[in-house]
């Protein structure tokens, strides 16, 4: 699946997007954050406060317990500040 990062999540990780293949035990958005956090210091820094992180699956906002099965694109970003 494709993973995208925005705003300071993107800056901390250092890339805008990547394709990942998480192991079978990674079922929810929360699981995915946990797994991504183990991939290096930059990820651990970006996800150090997982409760602050918002997620979207295929362009729709989702909660941390949302299942990631079948997702084409998952995005992680801080709370929105547009308008």
């Amino acid at each position, binding site marked *: 699946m494709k993973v*995208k990062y*925005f*705003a*300071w999540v993107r800056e901390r990780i250092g890339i805008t997007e990547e394709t990942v293949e998480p192991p079978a035990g990674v079922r929810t958005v929360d699981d995915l954050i946990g797994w991504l956090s183990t991939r290096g210091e930059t990820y651990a820094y970006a996800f150090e406060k997982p409760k602050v992180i918002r997620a*979207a699956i295929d*362009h*729709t*906002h989702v909660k941390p317990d949302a299942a990631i099965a079948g997702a084409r694109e998952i*995005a992680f*970003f*801080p*709370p*929105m*500040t*547009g*308008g």
Partner: protein
Amino acid sequence: MTGPVTIRVQEDDFDIAREIAGLTRDRTDIGAVVTFSGICRSDEDSAKVAALTLEHYPGMAEEEIRRHVDEAISRWPLDGVTVIHRVGRFMPGQNIVLVLTASQHRKAAFEAAEFLMDYLKTSAPFWKKEESATGTGWVEAHARDDEAAARWTRS
């Protein structure tokens, strides 16, 4: 609803008069157009802002705005909606966002415009980065914006 819906995310500035004309041209049934324009301001929490950079999630931003425009259309008798959100780097005084709502009467137009702005602030994937004399940093979300959006939630 009978009327145009326009949703754009763009770097270019918008012309408010031209956008209003786009909603009211050849129409004699519209009695109210409410305009909200959001402008880059220089004072943010007592710090002087030199510039703002707006980042967005292409694709989702337009879709998320569309979902809220559709909800507004289902809740109020509207005759046209325009939402334009700019992205890029802005100096104080420059336009950032435009919401236009057209209706026969003002109440629906006012309420729908406020509803759309409250959700644009909390739910549309845009992020502001601020440059000031003390440095550069991402703007933090305000609880007051979440509260403003929450009051539209129907139980």
